[in-house]
């Protein structure tokens, strides 16, 4: 690459560009087709989440966490309530834990479906996107019958859940899983093992493991680089330690470890593992029990601070909460996995062609709502 040398040209991608997954502006310095420098500009979706939190009570913050990462809202709720519960030393019942895990894993599948679908669309495959959205819709329907909302759930509360599971939910989930499992193979045949897709993604945008750690890349992107690190296993929270599941890591089957194809493959494998977790949780789900049982009358964590991280579909989702004992927190900081992943974009994508940059950006699976907060 870089054989033809011309004048440097500055190309502005975004802020409204279909392949940027939100409102993101990239200032790209190019030499011919080859990208020499990328400067991301963010903040178009800044909604002052952290400033709002200082004036809201703890329970009022939960709907705001929904709106940060609107693709994986359940996981955002989960991360926040786990942090507050640890501060207040609340133990929730087995039933609540089971339902939370089921919801979080279903949401992970939905999030990965969107990630893979849009990734496919970024590199020119439109059909798989429609198929994946169709199945994502089935998961959203399950959420809808549970809490009434399709995207912004406000479902997990401190010490419990907003609603118990509706009648017939378990059967519906089983039915969905039985339908969905064979679909995965179809997607893989359609997109992952498609020759054109492999040509576009294998060996492209390789992220070496030590660079990934240094840039704070987490989640599926880190695992694709060959590091077996999953907070559900390594820093187990809730009841994840009672389920058996594998942590898929990139193997470089089509090219090099840590290329775009590996990032796709890890997500595809993770969906299978999530299905396994949901099945196990459904099997041991207690029928009796009140989901409001452990909910405190007043949420006033003792003075102090906590940094708690959980595994969201995009990686380490951290909440740094400082309490002074009053009904609203002194400070809430959200450490967003997409924020750090986008921060690593220039390290991965410089030296590749413009079309590869779009593929790399798609493979990182960023959500601008979470980056800008």
């Amino acid at each position, binding site marked *: 690459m870089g054989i033809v040398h011309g004048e440097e040209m500055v190309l502005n991608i975004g802020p409204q560009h279909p392949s940027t997954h939100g409102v993101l502006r990239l200032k790209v310095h190019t030499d011919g087709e080859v990208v020499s420098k990328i400067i991301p500009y*963010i*903040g178009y979706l*800044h909604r*002052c989440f*952290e*400033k709002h939190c*200082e004036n809201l009570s703890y329970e009022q913050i939960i709907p705001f966490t929904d709106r940060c990462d609107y693709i994986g809202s359940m996981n955002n709720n989960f991360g926040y309530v786990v942090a507050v519960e640890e501060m207040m030393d609340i133990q929730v019942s087995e039933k609540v834990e089971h339902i939370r895990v089921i919801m979080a894993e279903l949401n992970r599948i939905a999030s990965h479906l969107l990630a893979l679908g849009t990734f496919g669309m970024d590199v020119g495959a439109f059909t798989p996107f429609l198929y994946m959205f169709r199945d994502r819709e089935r998961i959203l329907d399950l959420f809808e019958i549970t809490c009434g909302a399709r995207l912004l759930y406000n479902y997990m509360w401190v010490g419990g859940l907003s609603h118990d599971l509706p009648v017939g939910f378990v059967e519906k989930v089983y039915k969905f899983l039985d339908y969905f499992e064979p679909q995965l193979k179809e997607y893989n045949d359609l997109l992952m093992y498609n020759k054109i897709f492999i040509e576009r993604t294998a060996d492209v945008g390789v992220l070496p493991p030590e660079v990934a*750690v*240094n*840039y*704070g890349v987490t989640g599926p992107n880190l695992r694709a680089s060959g*590091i077996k*690190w999953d907070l559900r296993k*390594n820093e187990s929270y809730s009841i994840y330690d009672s389920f058996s599941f594998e942590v898929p890591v990139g193997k470089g089957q089509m090219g090099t470890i840590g290329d775009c194809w590996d990032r796709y493959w890890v997500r595809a494998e993770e969906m299978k593992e999530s299905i396994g977790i949901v099945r196990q949780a459904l099997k041991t789900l207690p029928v009796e029990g009140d989901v409001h049982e452990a909910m405190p009358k007043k949420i006033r964590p003792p003075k102090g*601070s906590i*940094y708690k*991280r959980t595994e969201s579909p995009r990686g*380490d989702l*951290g909440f*740094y909460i*400082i309490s002074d004992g009053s009904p609203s927190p*002194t*400070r809430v*900081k959200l*450490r967003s996995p997409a*924020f*750090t992943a986008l*921060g*690593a974009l220039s*390290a991965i994508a410089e030296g590749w062609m413009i079309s590869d940059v779009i593929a790399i950006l798609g493979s990182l699976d960023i959500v601008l709502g979470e980056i*800008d*907060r």
Partner: protein
Amino acid sequence: MNPENILNILRERFPRSVVEMEEMPDNYIPLLPDNWFEIATLLQENPDLQFDSLQCVTGIDLAEDLLEVRYNLHSMVHLHKIEIRISVPKDKPKIPSVEKIWRVGDWFERETYDMYGIVFDGHRDHRRILLPDDWEGWPLRKDYETQETYHGIVVPKVKEEWE
């Protein structure tokens, strides 16, 4: 390695940088800003410590003319973690940048600067990140007041009551 051992290593190498308190906290280490870059290098390179990942950088306004930055570090090798706290006065908020050691710190520090106006000395790309470059003030400070107009547009004041 637990926080106490880490504290002892730091005390040995940088005796003047550790803020000594009557009762040393067990979950974090308070430091002075002066040698932070050297300490961070030690934290990353010492084979017993190897803090290779910077998890989170949080700024806080401690209200009494003090700003604080908290760094959450984690080691993927030894699986231990530590929190570093550095306080700076509001009228001279300056902390050495660690962006060269942990590249993830690049955006984290820009964000902290954006929200609190803390200057990270030695940062190679020191500008605002989430807010526009010409925004006035530091929004997450407790004494922040919204600017009255922005490019001729009136910025609505915060409402006292919920409507």
